[in-house]
């Protein structure tokens, strides 16, 4: 009897601390969305930039000879997957900026004197926010690409696209949050974001297949996480979903669709484990 009462009461307190966690995470997330709603320029830029890539690059290669690309794909359709991934990637890379500004302006202290249930809610809020934004931006690009005649994945393909993007966004968000706590200020963070962005795009299969690249670049592209996200999505656009077929003929061996997802999963877990201690120290 006593045991069951104490079990009930401990359950009740657990439930209430869970609802506390929800309340604080929701409040912090809402703040980020309010900021976005009042300063939508970053959202707009985040959609415009990849859109310009899509239209300009698509046009640039529109008269390329048929059968140039593997599987006889049109360049626009080929490019679509790259630009979708790039959109999600560069969106998630910005995840650390709001946190960095909160550190710099001291707003973080306001959060830290509050009796937060867990300081992870600060991280959760950033992840929820940036994931939503990145997926929305990517969907906007997918819609535009389909209007341009570059295709639309089937239902199963769509799920694969979302799942792949989710993994990538989680990994990059973790990285960006880690940088936001490790770097001394927003100038340094913006510099890193700026420098990381384009080279990672060019050293991936976003714009051209591995077979077009000199071997040093093919090596880089074949270990670039972006490639591991791009190829499953490209496959989802290409036809019926089959994760067992080889998607990347990398210099070190063949990589199947499944392998891509496993690599992305491991990368995400690894990055969160890596930044965990840093966040704990900074938020202690």
């Amino acid at each position: 009897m006593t045991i069951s009462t104490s079990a009930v009461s401990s359950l009740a307190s657990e439930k209430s601390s869970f609802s506390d966690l929800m309340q604080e995470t929701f409040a912090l997330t809402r703040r980020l969305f309010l900021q976005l709603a009042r300063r939508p320029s970053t959202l707009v830029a985040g959609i415009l930039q990849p859109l310009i890539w899509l239209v300009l690059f698509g046009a640039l290669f529109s008269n390329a000879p048929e059968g140039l690309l593997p599987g006889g794909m049109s360049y626009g359709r080929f490019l679509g997957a790259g630009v979708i991934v790039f959109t999600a990637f560069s969106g998630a890379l910005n995840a650390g900026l709001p946190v960095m500004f909160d550190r710099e302006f001291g707003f973080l202290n306001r959060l830290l004197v509050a009796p937060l249930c867990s300081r992870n809610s600060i991280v959760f809020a950033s992840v929820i926010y940036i994931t939503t934004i990145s997926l929305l931006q990517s969907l906007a690009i997918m819609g535009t690409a389909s209007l341009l005649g570059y295709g639309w994945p089937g239902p199963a393909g769509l799920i694969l696209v979302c799942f792949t993007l989710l993994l990538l966004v989680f990994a990059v968000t973790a990285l960006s949050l880690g940088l936001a706590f490790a770097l001394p200020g927003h100038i340094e963070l913006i510099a890193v974001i700026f420098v990381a962005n384009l080279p990672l795009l060019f050293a991936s299969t976003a714009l051209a297949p591995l077979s077009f690249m000199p071997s040093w670049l093919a090596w880089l592209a074949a270990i670039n996480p972006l490639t591991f996200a791009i190829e499953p999505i490209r496959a989802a656009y290409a036809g019926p979903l089959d994760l067992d077929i080889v998607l990347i003929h990398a210099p070190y061996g063949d990589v199947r669709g499944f392998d891509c997802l496993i690599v992305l999963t491991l990368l995400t877990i690894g990055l969160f484990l890596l930044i965990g201690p840093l966040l704990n120290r900074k938020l202690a």
Partner: protein
Amino acid sequence: MPLIELKELEKSYGAVKALRGLNLNVPKGSLFGLLGPNGSGKTTTLRIICTLLAPDSGQVQVVGLNALKKAREVRRAIGYVAQDVAIDKILTGRELLKLQGDLYHLSPVYRDQRIEELISRLVMSDWIDRRCGSYSGGMRRRIDLASGLLHQPQLLILDEPTVGLDIESRSTIWQLLLELKNKGTTILLSSHYLEEIEALADQMAIIDEGRVIAEGSPKNLKEKLGGDRVTLRVREFSDENEAKKISKLLETIEGVRQVVINQLQGFSLNLVVDDESVLKCIREKLASADLKIFALSQSRPSLDDVYLQATGRTLMDAELELVGQRDMKLESKNAMR
């Protein structure tokens, strides 16, 4: 039982020793003033109490809990109004208060009710739905005070709450603090304004170079000092020789202490007398030396005198000494998490 108990706190920022064995007891129900010049360690002390900063060594007991171990429980009991207000410029005041309420896990109904109460109490309704970026210093302070009070903490901590404020905002805040104290909230506030401590505090401590050097009620501290402060002039503008002559004369009188020539005030003389009867002796002595009294004023010891006695310099001098020496940019960079 003290609500805050600090023992032998030490804290350094690199080579700068901010706290050097600070001891402090804040009794429950008091409105406690922490008086000290810029750089004396007030903010550091308050940040340690609020669990924002860990001391290098020493004990921190707040609301009966070890703040270094039970940080979350302590945070729940405290409302903290920081010195530099960090607000989100894009949010409106109301949105900021709601966020604050959610971070303290208030139920939405209670939260919104408290927000309304504070909006009317702090006269914020005209601008509460404007973005915080457009607020004046006084408005920011009020919003910050409101967010500190939202969850009705038993302990309110304010770091120099009225620095740089207009008179109206200042008196609104003072009134609210007195009202809160009467309702039983314990309040600890730091200040380098004597008149603020004088107007509000029923208990106080003087902090200097990271140590508490005097502690008690303002009344007691002044009484302990004893004597009356007297300013004496024999003519409107005297000269050094005359002043020295009088000074020698005065020092021979029993019950006269600390005679100082104040050159800046036309060589007037400042002194301390034990009681009224000494004044009579002074008048007689001066008359017998053929000196007339042009002006004589007498006052009870002030907190400034208490500070002077404890540190050997006036609060104003201490303030001037340190101003401009601090690199606030570097400090906020260092304080970044």
